[in-house]
């Protein structure tokens, strides 16, 4: 008996059953498909709507959740899909119960607050469902190799638009672009300088690329690219933000798909960041916890690709010129011109593609305020598209595309719902408003399955790209800031202006950002106050509904944990290096003035110097000069360097003045390598829902400590003055 119940055996059977069901030839026929759909819909409706007494509901949920816990031990998309359906059912059942049974209509105040919360929950439900649809089955597209005969390869114009960034930021990008493996006469590299700076033109001339300027700055980056499109004629257009340095293999990996799919209008690759974003820097999680963008580039875009709904992200992508011409160039109606451009091309029936291989790397935003500014722009732009060119309506898109694009936009409306969740419990604790008309036990019986399944399933699907509960922190940090612009854009899409994301700045000293953290502090204060009042309610005033008091107090504790983490994010840590050090193991050789040499490997590199791991017993004096050999496409390259730091087994060197050729060589030996970004996430912890919660709790505690320090600093400063 035991052998039959053996899990592997059962799993094998389940898999076989699943496969035979999928491969059943009857599915080719419309009738069985329709019948199955109707049967499934009826069963689904029963699962979410059949009323149950509390014990039965608890029993039913326990069985389903136990099955999910059992299944998650196995890999495979089929298991994931089953878990997704469990989660969808549990959440839908919860939402159905909330709407039909728990909205108090006794008085208007209760009704108002109840409706606000339910609406926020319905929003979360819709986004959860669409999210599952988007990410259930990532396409994981592989590159198509280019034909051997390079004379058949198409011509490419490579644009590097810039407006106010420093030449030192743009220079490496141009040099990396020059290192791309592509026939020289078929790659046309152009800096599009909207700042019309003479030093850019001079630099372009010195390295042999073009630099275009235009008379005005209309439509910012989109207008800049459109102006350049008129002056060029390559069959394809590759676009890189001025700080995104491509690897040498970028075009060879991406262009193949254009040759096999004549309807392909755009191929996007991930935006990879070699420097920590404000979350990673201020929480010190760089390369340990997946960053905010990784869910999007690691999973969502790959999932979109299944539905032929990958969208253009403004950089690290190639577009087909004829398709761009058909829609009149890059879209200029909204501030997220990139997503809108892809949408317009897809409406004409063109395909888009996503290649999940990091083939370029750039700088993340430097401070939380810059990060917030960037996200405000994205949120506003997406809301604008939702308003002026809603993907749910209009011609040209298929069902999957409509849903994927809609979710991409709907996602940015999380501002208000997130704040509702962060403030909901205080409506009871402050004013005794019963926003959920049910006993605490029934709330638990319905909401726990919903929460547990959602976390378990998302951890399985997204865990590699986002750790559990981190979304709450990311959203809480931005909620207030994107709430207003999305609302404004929805009402009048023309309001608001384009703001450029600042990159390459420094943070002089550690400080608590009092300006950006205002909304967190307000929400935090309200929750703390709510909790204190809750103590009074629990002990004296509301002892007759102790369960409700405790439920709301637990909710505020959870909110405090999340808000504590936002405080930690708002504590800007010091950042003094102008060039970022990238941890990477590259082969190197030290060539000493006395003719000796040491073979070693790098620990990290930057455009200004590197750290090297040297053998036992080897040491040099600080200030000694030497040559460091690195290896790239053109073989060995030497860089004159000076020792600046010596530790046991580690030697840090700074490059001496490099000439243009040496700078180019340095790029091709480091960030230009085809494989340089591929093992980026190797050292990372694996996600588990409880671990995610632990991580957040840890950062939250740190946040409170740092906030305390910030408060002390502020106090001392005021005392002095």
């Amino acid at each position, binding site marked *: 008996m035991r052998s039959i119940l053996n899990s592997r055996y059962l799993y094998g059977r389940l898999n076989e059953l699943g496969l035979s069901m999928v491969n059943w030839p009857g599915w080719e026929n419309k009738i069985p498909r329709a019948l199955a759909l109707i049967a499934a819909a009826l069963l689904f409706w029963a699962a979410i709507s059949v009323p149950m007494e509390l014990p039965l509901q608890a029993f039913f949920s326990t069985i389903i959740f136990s099955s999910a816990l059992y299944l998650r031990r196995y890999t495979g998309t089929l298991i994931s899909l089953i878990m997704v359906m469990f989660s969808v059912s549990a959440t839908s059942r919860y939402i159905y119960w909330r709407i039909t049974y728990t909205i108090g209509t006794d008085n208007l105040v209760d009704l108002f607050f109840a409706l606000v919360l339910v609406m926020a929950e319905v929003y979360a439900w819709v986004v959860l469902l669409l999210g599952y649809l988007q990410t259930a089955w990532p396409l994981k597209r592989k590159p198509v190799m280019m034909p051997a005969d390079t004379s058949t390869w198409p011509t490419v114009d490579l644009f590097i638009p810039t407006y106010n960034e420093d030449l030192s930021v743009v220079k490496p990008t141009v040099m990396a672009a020059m290192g791309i493996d592509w026939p020289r006469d078929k790659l046309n590299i152009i800096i599009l300088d909207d700042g019309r700076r003479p030093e850019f033109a001079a630099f372009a001339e010195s390295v042999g690329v073009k630099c275009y300027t235009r008379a005005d700055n209309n439509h910012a980056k989109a207008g800049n690219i459109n102006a350049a499109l008129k002056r060029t004629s390559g069959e394809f257009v590759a676009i890189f933000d001025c700080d995104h340095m491509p690897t040498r293999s970028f075009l060879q990996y991406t262009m193949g798909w254009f040759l096999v799919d004549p309807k392909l209008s755009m191929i996007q690759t991930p935006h990879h960041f070699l420097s920590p974003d404000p979350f990673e820097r201020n929480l010190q999680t760089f390369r340990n916890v997946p960053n905010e963008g990784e869910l999007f580039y690691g999973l969502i875009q790959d999932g979109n690709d299944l539905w032929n709904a990958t969208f253009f992200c403004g950089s690290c992508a190639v577009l087909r010129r004829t398709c761009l011409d058909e829609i009149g160039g890059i879209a200029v109606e909204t501030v997220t011109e990139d997503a809108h451009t892809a949408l317009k091309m897809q409406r004409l029936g063109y395909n888009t593609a996503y290649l999940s291989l990091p083939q370029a790397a750039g700088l993340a935003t430097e401070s939380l305020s810059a990060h917030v500014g960037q996200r405000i722009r994205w949120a506003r732009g997406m809301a604008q598209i939702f308003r002026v060119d809603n993907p749910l309506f209009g011609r040209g898109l298929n069902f999957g595309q409509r849903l994927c694009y809609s979710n991409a936009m709907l996602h940015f409306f999380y501002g208000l719902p997130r704040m509702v969740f962060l403030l909901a419990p205080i409506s009871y604790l402050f004013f005794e408003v019963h926003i959920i008309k049910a006993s605490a036990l029934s709330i638990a019986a319905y909401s726990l399955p919903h929460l547990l399944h959602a976390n378990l399933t998302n951890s399985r699907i997204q865990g590699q790209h986002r750790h559990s509960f981190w979304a709450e922190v990311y959203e809480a940090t931005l909620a207030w800031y994107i709430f207003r612009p999305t609302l404004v854009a929805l009402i009048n899409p023309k309001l608001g202006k384009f703001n450029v994301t600042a990159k390459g700045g420094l943070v002089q000293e550690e400080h608590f950002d009092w300006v950006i953290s205002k909304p967190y502090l307000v929400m935090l204060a309200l929750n703390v106050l709510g909790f204190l009042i809750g103590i009074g309610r629990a002990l004296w005033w509301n002892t007759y509904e102790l369960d409700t008091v405790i439920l709301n107090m637990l909710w505020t504790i959870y909110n405090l944990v999340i808000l504590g983490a936002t405080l930690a994010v708002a504590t800007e840590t010091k950042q003094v290096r102008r060039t970022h050090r990238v941890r990477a193991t590259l082969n190197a*050789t030290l*060539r000493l003035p006395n003719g*000796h040499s040491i*073979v070693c490997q790098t620990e990290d590199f930057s455009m200004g110097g590197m750290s090297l791991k040297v053998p036992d017993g*080897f040491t040099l004096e600080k200030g000694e000069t030497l040559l460091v050999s690195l290896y790239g496409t053109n073989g060995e390259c*030497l860089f004159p360097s000076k020792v600046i730091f010596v530790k046991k087994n580690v030697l840090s060197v700074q490059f001496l003045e490099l000439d243009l050729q040496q700078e180019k060589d340095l790029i091709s030996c480091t960030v230009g390598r085809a494989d340089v970004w591929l093992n980026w996430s190797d050292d990372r912890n694996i996600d588990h829902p409880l671990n995610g919660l632990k991580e957040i709790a840890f950062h939250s505690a740190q946040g409170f400590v740092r906030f305390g320090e910030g408060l002390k600093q502020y106090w001392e400063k005021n005392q002095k003055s």
Partner: protein
Amino acid sequence: MRVVAVISPKGGVGKTTVTANLASSLARLGAVITVLDLDPQNALRLHFGMPHNDATGIAARNLPQGKWRNALHESSFGVDFLPYGSVDEKQREHFEHAIRAEPDWLLSHLNSLGLSETDVVLIDTPPGPSIYLQQVLKVANIGLVVLKPDAASYSTIPSIESLIQYYTKGRKDFLGYCYVLNQMDASKQLCRDVFGMLRSSLGDRFIPTAIHRDEAVSEALACQTPVSYYAQHSSATQDVKYLTTWLQKNFGLVD
């Protein structure tokens, strides 16, 4: 027996050093390695710790019974070597005269060593065409030409190429030959240019990892050890390792 001939079109390229270092590197792969010095300079032995005043060798007048076996020295680096021997001019002429008279001179002596099928023999030859090189090319399975990154080395390639082809033509057991650049200095423009020219003109025959000029190589010789024992982390050690890997990958020298 797998015979590798180490050849150079002209003197001073560091052929003997490459031979010695390559031999000790191959020995580390677990092969039984015998190195034969056919260069009258008799310098190979110095890399393996043989005393200067020891005059024994295959060309020496006092070689017992004329058997090579009796000239075989064991080194502490996993390599057995046959020194040429310190000889005067008269003895050398006498020795070379004997070689001329016997077309299979080298083959018969190698066979007399009683090596097995998989053992590797490295032979160091005098620079340029010589009576020794003729004999060696008739038995070699692989030719390794050592060059130096200068114009003279570059210009001698056609002549050495025709020489190799002349003596190995039609021999099924000759697997091929390749070139390695020694004393590379990537900080010198000329060296880089020669490297680039060699790579494009020699194609697959050019081993793309050159051996760098390295002070450790000269110092190792002064200490009479292979460089990999003298300076484990030096660039030259690494380069010889690459050379070994390349030969192993392309010819499968060692089982």
